[in-house]
């Protein structure tokens, strides 16, 4: 079936309830196109999402999917992939889901380097709870819970990933459909944890990090000739607080995924009808 899979096969018949103009539409379209372009089909794909606007993605896409609890999507994806190396596993999250409540899991998922992709819809705001500061909000960004701004620097997810030993770090923009799709494809094809932070503007609650803002400021690293395999060059752009970048910031070509390193190849869903044939050896061990 996979040879003639179209990206629309990954679309469910449920109409998204995202606000008109939400960046998540473009983000999701790119994810579906990237899955189809890399030869996957809904029956061999597992999508995990957390909570929030981003978490709704499992409903609007068609595949095997789980919509989990806030911040825990990465551990779920990790479990799916370890048990089923034969599946394509994609985890979707938001900046609150991934960089606040889920930040502990993020660091460990990165360093575990399980072969899955992680797409974060970063709109720098809490949308579904109606406009509070998120961990990536600017320090002077005024919201209902931070009338004078959060007064603390935003989390830099790319730097967090790099410091945690990431083997693939990328950033894309929901409205640049072609580049976004290419970048997610690269994350899927990366042998290890493919992390993509997506600028996915919230048109309702964030009037600072808008489509126009990103269109005007975004620098495309690949157009600039950035070499993603150069760790120090990656470090420089990731720590550069003055510019917004898209493209693949860092990729470790030599990356060995967790599954490969641990020799995980079996489909763990298949088990015999009774105890394993040599199971009495387990008992004899206690003689």
């Amino acid at each position, binding site marked *: *079936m996979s040879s003639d899979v179209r990206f629309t096969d990954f679309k*469910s*018949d*449920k109409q998204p309830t995202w606000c008109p103009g939400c960046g998540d539409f473009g983000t999701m379209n790119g994810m579906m196109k990237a899955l189809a372009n890399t030869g996957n089909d*809904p*029956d*061999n*794909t*597992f*999508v*995990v999402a957390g909570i929030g606007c981003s978490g709704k993605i*499992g*409903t609007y896409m*068609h*595949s*095997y*999917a*789980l*919509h*989990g*609890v806030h911040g*825990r999507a990465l*551990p*779920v*994806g*990790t*479990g*799916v*992939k*370890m*048990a*089923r190396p*034969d*599946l394509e596993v994609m985890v979707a999250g938001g900046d609150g889901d991934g960089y606040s409540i889920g930040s*502990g*899991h993020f*660091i*460990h998922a990165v360093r575990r380097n399980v072969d899955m992709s992680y797409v974060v819809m970063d709109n720098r705001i809490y949308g579904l709870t109606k406009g509070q500061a998120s961990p990536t909000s600017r320090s002077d960004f005024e919201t209902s819970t931070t009338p004078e701004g959060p007064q603390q620097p935003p989390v830099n997810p790319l730097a967090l990933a790099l410091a945690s030993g990431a083997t693939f770090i990328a950033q894309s923009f929901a409205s640049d459909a072609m580049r976004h799709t290419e970048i997610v494809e690269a994350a899927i094809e990366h042998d290890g944890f493919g992390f993509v932070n997506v600028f996915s503007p919230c048109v309702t609650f964030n009037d600072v990090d808008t489509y126009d803002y990103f269109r005007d400021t975004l620098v495309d690293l690949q157009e600039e000739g950035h070499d993603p395999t150069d760790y120090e060059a990656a470090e420089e752009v990731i720590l550069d607080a003055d510019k917004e970048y898209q493209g693949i910031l860092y990729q470790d070509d030599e990356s060995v995924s967790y599954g490969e390193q*641990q*020799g*995980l190849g*079996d*489909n*763990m*869903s298949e*088990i*015999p*009808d*009774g*105890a*394993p044939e040599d*199971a*009495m050896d*387990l*008992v*004899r061990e*206690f*003689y």
Partner: protein
Amino acid sequence: MPADLNWAIGGEAGDGIDSTGKIFAQALARAGRHVFTSKDFASRIRGGYTAYKIRTSVDDVQSVVDRLDILVALTQRTIDENLDEMHDGSAVIYDGERSWEAEIPDEVTAVDVPLKTLAEEAGGAIMRNVVALGAACEITGFDVAYLDEALEKRFGGKGSKIVENNKEAARLGRDHVREEYDLDHLGYDLETTDEDYVLLNGNEAIGMGAIAAGCRFYAGYPITPATSIMEYLTGRIDDYGGHVVQAEDELSAINMALGAARGGARSMTATSGAGIDLMTETFGLVATSETPLVIADVQRSGPSTGMPTKQEQGDLNMVLYGGHGEVPRFVVAPTTVTECFWKTVEAFNLAETYQTPVFLVSDLAMSVTEQTFPPEAFDMDAVEIDRGKIVSDEEVEEWLDDEGRFRAHAATDDGVSPRALPGTLDGAHMSTGLEHDELGRRTEDTDVRVQQVDKRNRKVETAKAEEDWDYREFGDPDADDLVISWGSNEGALIEALDLLEERDVSVRVLSVPYLFPRPDLTEDIEAADDVVVVECNATGQFADVIEHDTLTRVKRINKYTGIRFKADELADDIEAELSTEVPAQ
């Protein structure tokens, strides 16, 4: 002399108490004797009083008692801690060359063995505990040849030199006692048999049960006393195509296990009280997304971090009611080490048959108690695996709606839906912790909400009708008085029965391994004069449940010192409780 022998070694954590005790226990098991061990340890790496106790008999032993016959004391505190259990037939093995001046009561036989010096003679001071084991063999009339087998098992991997040195250390200990002391008056002469026993604890039995049941994925976070399940599975489950992962925390552990279960693997996590608190967040998701998952809770003293290395059965309310909203679940609680094995197998079958979370509830006492069993007690041929309603590529069709969408949460008569594992053609679907329709998609439709809540609860009703929610029965079936217990108290209760019989007190004992659903005890309780519920907690959580179920007040024996029930103590408590009125509440 009594038919059973009670032996202990005590010292500071880091003194090798545990491994020494285990070696002696294995030697006794090799000699065809039954063994029941218990451990007393503090929550620290080095220092602090630690003891390993062995009760052994040619008959079955299932409990500890308040009597100590032979004590290997590496510190004065070891003697002080055990004074009240020693009697005029007890012997204490100690090293008089050590700086402490042993204070040993006059009626107890003091056996001074230069443990360190003899160990050095055999090749190294590290073997001083083995010298003590040799001395213990001589006092108890136990052939050191059995000890040799245990030493080979323990040190075989480290080379023959180490094994030979240890054997020599044991002989030097034996010979010293043989030459210096005449202890025939103590009258110990350990009988041996031709039986072959295996020696294992509850956590090892849970791990073994998991592998036998086809568990392929385990995610956990280290916590006493659950960690040894993870340690058992690590390095073994891989041989069967599985994997163990140490997660960054309990939240991650249960979510990883959930992910693997969604992938179709038989999957498990284990923790203890404080970890169950954290996992509770995901517990409702497991239930609502109808994911089969086994969650083991090896209870310890709470609340909060409580006493991490001490016994308690205090999490019953947590596993019965934990999680917000109303969540269908099963709660299975093994009552013996062998049941830890069989109930684990059963937990996996229940989880997949009904697509629910299953709590497998054990406790610290069972998790660290090593006990002997005939190997047939773990007959692998008797393990049956029921994976429930997994649909094949061909069967998917009958579960598709008019638009070709898979009804993963179809509201069937028995409440159990078809299950399409990822990779099944045309079975793709989502599941969510949000209330959802048959397709798994979010809904707030009142009719669908009621349909799905009823459907999930119906699984429990189906299970109540389809499965045996039985109890185990001991004692006099015609006795007027009834004693009810859950968890690891069973062994001590069975032995208490013998002691009560000697005092002409006869009771009927029910040991209940299913906490939800649970057997209906109404008739048993109504037929009894007195009903006493025995449990290791302060408030009587199981007694509350029984009163709720049967609308009858019961008496309670509660122990929450952090130490498990002992047979003789329990006999006294039961006798006393039977002579009192049921308190007004």
